[in-house]
């Protein structure tokens, strides 16, 4: 404990952090709450002297918007699809990486590269890979087929309009899922690999003495002993998934969808952002609170499940 006489020193050292947190985290949270519960609140009108009545009008409005429910649906789909896929893939890659000796460091670095690469840049690369249209050398538009369609055609399949004008909703989602999974892998691999390397090697020796088949070692020893890391990766994965926004911008640009249907792939965060742009601060705050409650609920469920499944 800090001596009473010297407590002011402790406060002094903490002051910069506390002040910043109060100004940029605590106050915005309170302010969001206040704005959300003032019917039709707009900061611009408030500055002009207008007052707003308290109520839940903002929430009612948000939930009645088709655009909002679409955003919610997109976000949910992306979460539900990407978190299990990326976790599973990351687990397999981490186990594989952990079991090889030569080039382990090099491969680790390669797998970690996406993490330090700008997500907009990666998005543009993905857009190019899934593209079907390009410019001919003479400047005319032409089908050039991105690498994905080229591979599909190489194996005799029909090219798919993934994301250009006229593309369908589900191909768009596939592009986003692939992109998000790929983008989410490095961090997950890193966490899981760290977890794997901290598992005592004697458990594997013991399993070997007992003649445990490899699949059983994986399912009965590796996964349970890794369960805290897996839980961590899943929980943070869901939280990240609900905040998905920049990845859509990265692949589809600010239209948040193919050109013929702008905003089709918009997400919760995108909706909040758009609301702020139209000066509907009350609506944005209400949407932000709804997003917060959803993340909270999902995380609680995750924690409950992991309480039963995580073995430490």
């Amino acid at each position, binding site marked *: 404990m800090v001596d009473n006489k010297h407590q002011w020193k402790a406060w002094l050292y903490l002051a910069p952090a506390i002040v910043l947190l109060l100004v940029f985290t605590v106050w915005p949270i309170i302010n969001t709450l206040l704005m959300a519960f003032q019917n039709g609140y707009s900061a611009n009108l408030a500055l002009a002297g207008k007052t707003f009545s308290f109520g839940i009008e903002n929430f009612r409005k948000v939930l009645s918007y088709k655009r909002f429910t679409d955003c919610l649906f997109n976000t949910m789909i992306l979460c539900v699809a990407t978190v299990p896929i990326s976790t599973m893939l990351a687990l397999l890659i981490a186990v594989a990486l952990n079991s090889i000796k030569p080039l382990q460091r090099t491969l680790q670095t390669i797998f970690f590269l996406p993490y330090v690469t700008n997500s907009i840049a990666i998005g543009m690369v993905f857009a190019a890979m899934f593209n079907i249209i390009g410019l001919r050398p003479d400047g005319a538009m032409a089908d050039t087929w991105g690498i994905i369609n080229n591979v599909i055609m190489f194996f005799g399949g029909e090219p798919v309009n993934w994301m250009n004008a006229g593309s369908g909703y589900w191909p768009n989602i596939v592009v986003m899922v692939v992109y998000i999974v790929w983008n989410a892998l490095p961090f997950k691999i890193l966490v899981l690999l760290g977890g794997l390397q901290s598992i*005592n090697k004697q458990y594997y020796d013991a399993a070997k003495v007992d003649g445990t*088949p490899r699949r059983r070692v994986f399912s009965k020893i590796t996964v349970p002993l890794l369960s805290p890391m897996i839980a961590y990766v899943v929980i943070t994965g869901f939280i990240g998934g609900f905040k998905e926004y920049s990845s859509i911008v990265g692949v589809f640009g600010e239209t948040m969808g193919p050109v013929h249907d702008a905003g089709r792939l918009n997400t919760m965060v995108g909706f909040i952002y758009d609301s702020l742009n139209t000066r509907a601060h009350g609506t944005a705050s209400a949407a932000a609170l709804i997003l917060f409650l959803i993340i909270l609920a999902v995380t609680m469920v995750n924690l409950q499940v992991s309480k039963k499944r995580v073995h430490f």
Partner: protein
Amino acid sequence: MKVVLQNLTKIFPSRDKKSGKEVVAVNDFTFEIPDGKLIGLLGPSGCGKSTTLYMISGLQKPTSGKIFFGEDDVTELSTENRGIGLVFQNYALYPHMTVKQNILFPLENLKGADRLTKEEMLKRAHDAAALVQIDDLMDRKPNELSGGQQQRVAIARALVKMPRVLLLDEPLSNLDARLRLQTREEIRRIQKETGITTVFVTHDQEEAMSISDMIVVMKLGVLQQIGKPQDVYDDPVNLFVAKFLGTPPINVLEGEVKGGKVCIGGAAVAEAPGVADQPVYIGIRPEGFELDANGALECKLSNVEVMGRDVSIVSTHESSVNPVIRSIIDADYAIDREAETVRYNIKPHKLFVFNKETEERIYF
């Protein structure tokens, strides 16, 4: 099942590629473990005893040499096909499984004709648990058990598949002193009841001496001596073995053999017929001293420690290699604690003479 180790050698490549110095962990080790005996592999850390154990288990491959179980050459056989039970130093119990699941685990791995029915498995698990007296803890997780209980679970897990050979790596090192005494008796009992050939590794000579049928003393990968504990104690082949066995440890003095007599600082303390004159190390067990006012060996008395049954006399002598000479004398002797010096006669069979260069025993 007898276990035969034939010219077993294990060389670890050097970690540092530049210096290129390899480590010979076990060097040309030949030894036969008789069927149904309890064997203690004994030596200071780094002597290769654990490596030897892991080579018997198959978790480590010998660089050269052969291992036989009975008549079968198992050198190339993988661990799971050797039919061994291994108890790890820190037990390696699966933390996420209950005691029962831990013990059942090896049985659930069996395939084909070896596969037991669920009932048989449960029965075997319960028998193993009963043998080590943990049958009332079956639904606990390892972290809810004491060290001694975890140890028992580990032994039960090793025994449940009825191994041909049971291997224990430092089985007592993670237990407190009291539990250690209790557990070593327990290991002895379990080994006797099952009759499984058992090899255990320890650096604690007392532990090895007290329960082993035979002890194997190792130093820097080289076998020093094999024998019944009492035989090795009474008849060490070199200074290392003499020093390693016994508590309190043997007293080592510098001296010489001159004219067929063993002399310490000029005083003849024992006969050594037929031994050429030479400087030697002389080892005297603490119980090898007899108080005698006219004794040959005179030491400066520094302390008398009463231990009840015996008395331990701490004295010094300028030829002593150790800081003090410790003797253990029957408490019936009257000892003058105020005296400046104490004189001893040495019991001839408690005195060993070693070559000063090679530290090998000089027999006479």
